[in-house]
């Protein structure tokens, strides 16, 4: 009688081990290891954010340079008006969504221009660019300062 009881306990130990082994193997086999698409999305978002930031810098430089060239004997206020006008023209011609709030900043005159000697300084605060994929979203905020002598 005692022998039978010990046999049942030992057999149960073995059966439970086998059940646990099968369960864990099944969990491992059914695990979806295809993380490529998720990883690719994140990689693409990081690339886009950096690209958009650089695009905003290039676009601001182009607008600033064109404004200075076409308004050489202008006052600071006139130059500011010129920048708003040129930015609006470019926005109407071609609006790239990755530019974030750049055109809104120009439209709402939310930028500063200062003059030191023969060079002009353009400063825009709280610019942002963003990238979205499904439920994921990245937003990068940054200020931008361009000097007509150093950067153009």
């Amino acid at each position: 009688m005692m022998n039978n009881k010990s046999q049942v306990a030992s057999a149960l130990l073995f059966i439970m081990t086998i059940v646990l082994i099968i369960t864990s193997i099944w969990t491992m086999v059914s695990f979806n290891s295809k993380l490529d698409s998720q990883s690719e999305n994140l990689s693409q978002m990081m690339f886009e954010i950096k690209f958009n930031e650089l695009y905003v810098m290039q676009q601001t430089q182009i607008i600033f340079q064109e404004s200075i060239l076409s308004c050489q004997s202008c006052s600071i206020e006139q130059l500011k008006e010129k920048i708003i006008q040129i930015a609006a023209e470019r926005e109407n011609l071609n609006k790239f969504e990755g530019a974030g709030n750049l055109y809104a900043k120009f439209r709402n005159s939310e930028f500063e221009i200062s003059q030191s000697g023969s060079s002009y300084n353009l400063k825009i605060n709280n610019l942002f660019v963003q990238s979205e994929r499904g439920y994921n979203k990245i937003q990068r905020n940054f200020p931008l300062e361009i000097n007509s002598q150093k950067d153009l």
Partner: protein
Amino acid sequence: MIKNKKSQLGKGLVFVPILILLVISLTIYLFLASGITLLKKPSPQSPASSISYENNLLLQKVKIKINTQEKEFTVLDVFLLRINQKITDLEIKNALETLRQQTGKCYLLSASPSQYVNYFYSNRDTLYDSSFASKTKDKTNFLIIKLNNQDLEIRSYFGEC
């Protein structure tokens, strides 16, 4: 006392083969689990290639004529102007060719805004020029932008010829 000793001996005798079976099955499990770990290894993408003004075609500045006035644009803007039919094929080709002459770098730019339209610009033949195709293979940038509420994938390369 004798009974107890007997039962202990019986217990031991039954437990030994079970113990051997357990050791064998756990060893098999260990090998199986290691094999599966190797097979099911996640393969994450390498981080996005480094991006700068110099190595990205779409961020280069080029000049084109718009309403009889020559203006500076980024290549991305010029390409979008082309897709929106605001400039001609020749104008974008000339702008890219001027850029190639100024920098000495080769370029590739393409996108398919619809099933029937494909824009493709390159100064080298990527289909038959295998050396150029191998150079562009890993250094081509893919940018997905929204155009007319649709995703548009722009493929670009700017570098060694």
